[in-house]
């Protein structure tokens, strides 16, 4: 292990482009090293920093386990994938892109349901009528459980959904969902509405530091530099 700081950034998709743009704007241009398809890189003109291109959800695991010092990823993924997030990582700075709200959404035809409390009040009747609990489709199982518990909602079952979650109420695979939304248009197109107190997290991309990694003086200095550049 060298004294280098390892910075994990998204390896593909829109989040990668926005990350690269934000870093470049802060005078921290990313450059891949080795072959063009490689997963390693550096920041132009900055010694002692290695860049790892990793899928966004993997970045949370890198930070959790201390494989990277810093990472750029959505707060939603940090909170979902690291159960004890505040112990293991520190959110250093929101970066102003990758905005997405994690929300509880139910069919718009449920005109009797506006809040988490009314959802729970309805749950026993649902269970009697259908002989099962309400099904909640989501890929955010940890966030869902924590939020539902804090709201006192317990009569439900999670159905793990890894794609097209917003279509599950219409298809009958689930009754309601927990998913991310930016404008709400996709939810509306699928006949869904967000509950009044159903916003679990207003997420955006963050610069995140691991607390589970060895911070050499050189790595610490590089961290201060990156943070200062991003804030300037």
């Amino acid at each position, binding site marked *: 292990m060298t004294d280098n700081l390892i910075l994990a950034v998204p390896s593909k998709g829109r989040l990668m482009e926005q990350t690269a743009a934000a870093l470049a704007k802060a005078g921290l241009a990313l450059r891949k090293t080795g072959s063009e398809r490689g997963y390693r890189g550096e920041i132009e003109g900055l010694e002692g920093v290695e860049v790892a291109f990793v899928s966004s959800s993997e970045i949370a695991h890198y930070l959790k386990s201390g494989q990277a010092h810093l990472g750029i990823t959505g707060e939603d993924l940090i909170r979902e994938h690291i159960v004890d997030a505040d112990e293991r990582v520190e959110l250093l700075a929101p970066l102003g892109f990758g905005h997405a709200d994690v929300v509880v959404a139910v069919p*718009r035809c449920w*005109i009797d349901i506006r809040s988490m*409390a009314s959802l729970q009040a309805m749950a026993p009747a649902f269970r009697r*009528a259908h002989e099962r609990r309400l099904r909640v489709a989501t890929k955010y199982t940890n966030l869902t459980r924590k939020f539902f518990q804090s709201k006192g909602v*317990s009569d439900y079952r999670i159905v793990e959904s890894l794609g097209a979650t917003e279509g599950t109420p*219409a298809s009958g695979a689930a009754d309601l969902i927990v998913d991310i939304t930016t404008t709400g248009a996709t939810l509306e197109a699928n006949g869904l509405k967000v509950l009044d107190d159903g916003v679990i997290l207003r997420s955006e991309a963050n610069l995140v530091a691991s607390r589970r990694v060895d911070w050499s003086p050189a790595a610490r200095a590089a961290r201060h530099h990156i943070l200062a550049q991003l804030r300037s």
Partner: protein
Amino acid sequence: MVAETAREFEALEAQAQRLMGVFTKAGYEAVAPAIIQPADVFLDVVGESLRARTYVFTDPGGGELCLRPDLTVPTCRLHLERHPDADVKARYCYNGPAFRFQPAGVSAAHPREFRQAGIELFGETRREQAEAEVVGLTLEAVRAAGLERWGLRIGDLGLFQALLDAIDMPDRWRGRLRHQLWRPDAFREELFRLIRDPAAALLDLPADLVATLDPADPASSEAEVGRYLEAHGLELIGARSVSEITQGLLAAAADAAAEPLSPSAAELIETYVNVKAPARAAGARLADLMSEREIDIESALDIYHERLQHLVDAGIDPALIEFSAEFGRNLEYYTGFVFEIVVPELGTGSPVAGGGRYDGLLKAVGAREAVPAVGSAIHTERLLSVVNGGGE
């Protein structure tokens, strides 16, 4: 604390033999339910909160399974396999590993893998006697294993239910308060909601529609709701029918029309929930509290005293029994009496044994009717460490 040397394992085994000896001598049949269980049953019965504490996994065939988080549900399943109608009285005992994820980290008192020894008594309709039998036998077992200093904490969800029944309020509100008892913050919030303006229940619901609904005429109400959905381009998706949505609106309307819960009733409920005292004194205090407010929960109090008498008859010193009104265990399947055996070395957060009544569980697992059921489980590693003088 999980036995990782042969000597530790043998010490646990020797203790388990003593515990099981007490159980089998009392007529409890030793059983060994499967360690790997279908996750579905647990999640349906206990709910999603369980998933946070349970090792749930998918096997290569795609089946969702779990390492059993306790032995009560597996024993219920075993009983139903033998007696699908659950119409047979039965006494079972067991000893074996159970597994729980510890979100706050693994420690000696909270290991991820531990061995439980316990008993289940199904189908006994003499309820208070059955409860005292289970408590008495559990205490006999831990004392046979060498436990000398202990206390018994008891709770009684029957008293809470009786109190709610005795206070004038819509039945739905009782259900909500019962549901939230386990979560102190949500419970207080719910109480607060009920003493405020109930019309708030209608806030943000389509008032013009609600005004046209008539609880006495479900058919026309449903037709109104159907017309409303269509007029507003709200496609009916998902499992809930127009009838269910109508019932939801009617329930909200009924809540709005109800008198708010009186502040004095809410205060009585709060006072009740905070009662914590030696068992006999607690009974007297509850009687005083209720007669001051002219609230009649006498038959539930009679049951409380009758059970207490059975416990004393079983040889338990009443001075060692403490009643706590809010104590209901964190597993939601308990439906009535609950208890824990606590020791000074570990405190109330880490009881060496616990159990209670869970009349709904066999039905949830597949029986046609609710079946009276009482059980208990001993945390055997904790017990051994205390008996060995280690505490933690």
